[in-house]
């Protein structure tokens, strides 16, 4: 679990309620608290849990929104795109190939400055009809201007959903944001969550205001007219300008979150676990943090100084900060719950990004091993983590290791 500490003096004042809910339910509650105007839905496992919870909230009269069941994911994302341009706070989401089916709408949304907030229940890309977690679905939009974050607990899912609306709807940003929740491990398992009060949320999250980009009879504009080679490069540069400031905006929002809700996330971009005196670290995203942390505690009992870095934000990728943090270790092992066939070193996506960030941002050049693990919903086990740690220590000692290794694979 993330280190979520509520100072005692603040806890007294806040009338938070504790609830036993899944990651999907936590996001549904965040949508209610954020007073989302338009929700579109189309079922696909594991995302569908969130649409079920929201429809339940609507049916129970707890939430007032336009709840539209589209005829497919493409329409689902198109509808919220248009609603958002017209000034509605929106929510939608999908999983695996459903997310891919929406791809046309996903690709155009960043340039149109659409702050849609989505939940991706991470799922393997079919066929073979697999519905376990893999991160390639959400990662497919990593180059397109989307903001991408991975959470590892129901509490973090709820908090991040609120943060997501603040970041995405910031007038300096206004781009889509996807919150990734590992299928099954987070979407379907219930944890104890502190549910903030509506007053807190009201204080934290101002109404959505897209200024002069609002499509409205009182603000007559034309959105997405024909643009050819005379315009597209400038349009891309405008989106690029957003990426230059996103890290700063995220820092601001987390600081304010901490002040209002009292929960402290520290560095917004990545969580460090037992890294202070570590010789080597593992790095990964999502719910693999649980077995990794358990294994680390076990290994530390045996005197092995290993730590863990859990990446929260993949886009923006806080390259310089990550490189600065990682340069102090003797070796790094990146655990990818994804694949990137044919990539440099045939590594996963995260390992490739980490190596790239370190090439320019790090003062040292420790070995960066890539591990492909836990694909298709397979468990990342404590023994798997022990195996990976052993390999990273070998690399730290200067013993050559393959740059990419598959862990937990039947040979």
């Amino acid at each position: 679990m993330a280190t979520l500490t509520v100072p005692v003096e603040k806890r007294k004042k806040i009338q938070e309620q504790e609830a036993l809910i899944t990651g999907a339910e936590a996001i549904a509650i965040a949508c209610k608290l954020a007073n989302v105007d338009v929700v579109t839905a189309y079922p696909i496992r594991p995302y569908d849990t969130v649409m079920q919870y929201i429809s339940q909230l609507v049916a129970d009269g707890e939430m007032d929104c336009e709840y539209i069941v589209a005829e497919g994911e493409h329409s689902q994302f198109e509808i919220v795109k248009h609603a958002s341009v017209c000034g509605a706070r929106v929510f939608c989401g999908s999983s695996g190939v459903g997310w891919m089916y929406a791809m046309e709408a996903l690709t155009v949304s960043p340039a149109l400055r659409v702050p849609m907030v989505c939940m991706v229940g991470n799922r393997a890309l079919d066929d073979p009809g697999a519905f376990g977690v893999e991160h390639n679905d959400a990662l497919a939009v990593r180059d397109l201007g989307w903001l991408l974050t991975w959470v590892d607990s129901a509490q973090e899912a709820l908090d991040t959903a609120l943060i997501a609306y603040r970041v995405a709807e910031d007038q300096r940003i206004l781009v889509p944001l996807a919150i990734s929740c590992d299928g099954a491990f987070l979407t379907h398992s219930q944890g104890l969550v502190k549910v903030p009060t509506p007053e807190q949320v009201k204080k934290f999250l101002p109404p959505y205001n897209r200024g002069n980009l609002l499509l409205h009879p009182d603000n007559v504009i034309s959105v997405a007219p024909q643009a050819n080679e005379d315009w597209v490069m400038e349009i891309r540069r405008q989106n690029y300008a957003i990426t230059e400031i996103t890290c700063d905006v995220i820092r601001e929002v987390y600081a304010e979150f901490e002040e209002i809700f009292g929960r402290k996330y520290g560095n917004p971009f990545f969580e460090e676990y037992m890294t202070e005196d570590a010789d080597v670290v593992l790095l990964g995203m999502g719910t693999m943090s649980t077995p990794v942390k358990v294994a680390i505690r076990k290994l530390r009992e045996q005197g092995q100084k290993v730590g863990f870095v859990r990446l929260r934000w993949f886009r923006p990728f806080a390259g310089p900060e990550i490189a600065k943090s990682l340069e102090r270790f003797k070796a790094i092992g990146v655990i990818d719950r994804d694949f990137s066939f044919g990539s440099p070193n045939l590594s996963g996506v995260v390992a490739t990004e980490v190596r790239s960030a370190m090439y320019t941002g790090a003062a040292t050049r420790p070995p960066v091993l890539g591990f492909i693990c836990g694909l298709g919903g397979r468990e990342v086990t404590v023994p798997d983590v022990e195996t990976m740690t052993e390999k990273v220590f070998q690399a730290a000692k200067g013993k050559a290791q393959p740059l990419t290794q598959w862990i937990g694979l039947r040979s």
Partner: protein
Amino acid sequence: MGQLFAVEIIYRGVFQKTLAKNITRGIVLAARNQGKLGISFGRYGDSPERNGIPAKSFAIVANDEQTLEAGMAQYEPKQVDVTVVLDDTLCKGAESWAWYGLQPVHHALKPGGTLVVVSLEDKPALLKTIHKREEPYKLGIVKGAASFSGMWVFKDDHTDVRVLGVIAKALPELFSFKSVEDYINDKLKSGLKATSARNAYDRFAAVEVKPGEGNPEKLFNYNLPGWQKMRDGVSIAGQPQGGPYADPVTGNVGGFRPARNELFKKYSTRTMRPVVNFKTCTKCTLCWLNCPDASFDVTPDGTYDVNLESCCGCGVCEQVCPVKDCVSMVNESEFHDNHSQWEAFKKDQDAYLKWLETTIQKAEPIGERAHGFRYRGQYQEEVPEALEIAARG
């Protein structure tokens, strides 16, 4: 570096797209018969699949590979030796879907280069519309109406090979007539087409156009803003609503003129324009309602005046008008400005109605007009006449 040649074809999408391609292919293949190398391509930024849009095709030819590569190392040739205009109404200038405003047809023509226009008009008539420029050039006419040859269902009127014959005459360094003839015999396998090309070659004569000769109209252009000045979110500000305006004679204010985008006019797409009889107009509103580009102003009189900078000449107004000869589509080559017809009518009714009477005689009866044509079968009927003109030269 060896010698580099470039020829551009300005044509109307979509009807002349294949014709333009056939000509630029023919240029490369004829030059190939003399051992030269070349490429043929259409400008991608145009929308050549769209009805009437001015578009361009190019042929680039060189003696050796490196010179050809130098010619290809740019999106399109900035300077061409020959410009061919396949529809003389394009002489008013071309505004494609790229944002550069209105360009004269000789925009890319080298000083001293040859402008070839397929037209039934003569030089003085064409120079009323072709814009003047600083550098001299040559103007040659290939007698003929705007051709649709190359469209799947229409018969071949030999415009492609006639233009090739003319290029051999205008730019003998590119290829000889013999190379054109060999290309026609080898690839097109038509003795008749070879004869048409020969006739065009023999009869073509270009005349010098002096600096400053031609249409003095100032072309509208457009400065593209930088990324920091552009509106965000792929959005553009809407036009203001517009409103009533004044009668130029009485000063009465009324009617409604919508605001229009001053930066993107599109009227160079037009090959025929509506001519309106304000006297017989019953104010039924149909032209105004049906115009897909909101090109009609409601005049203070309550009649409908077409804004000729906005109209792209689709002819829907003529189709829906219930009054005989109240809206008539007339070929664009009859006109030399975009002034308001209603203002002319208000200033001198009799003169306007007299002008109207003679002008609309040039309109074809609408009958059963197929889209883009005046009536079904018109083009097939015109082919023998076109061939006869071709034979006469």
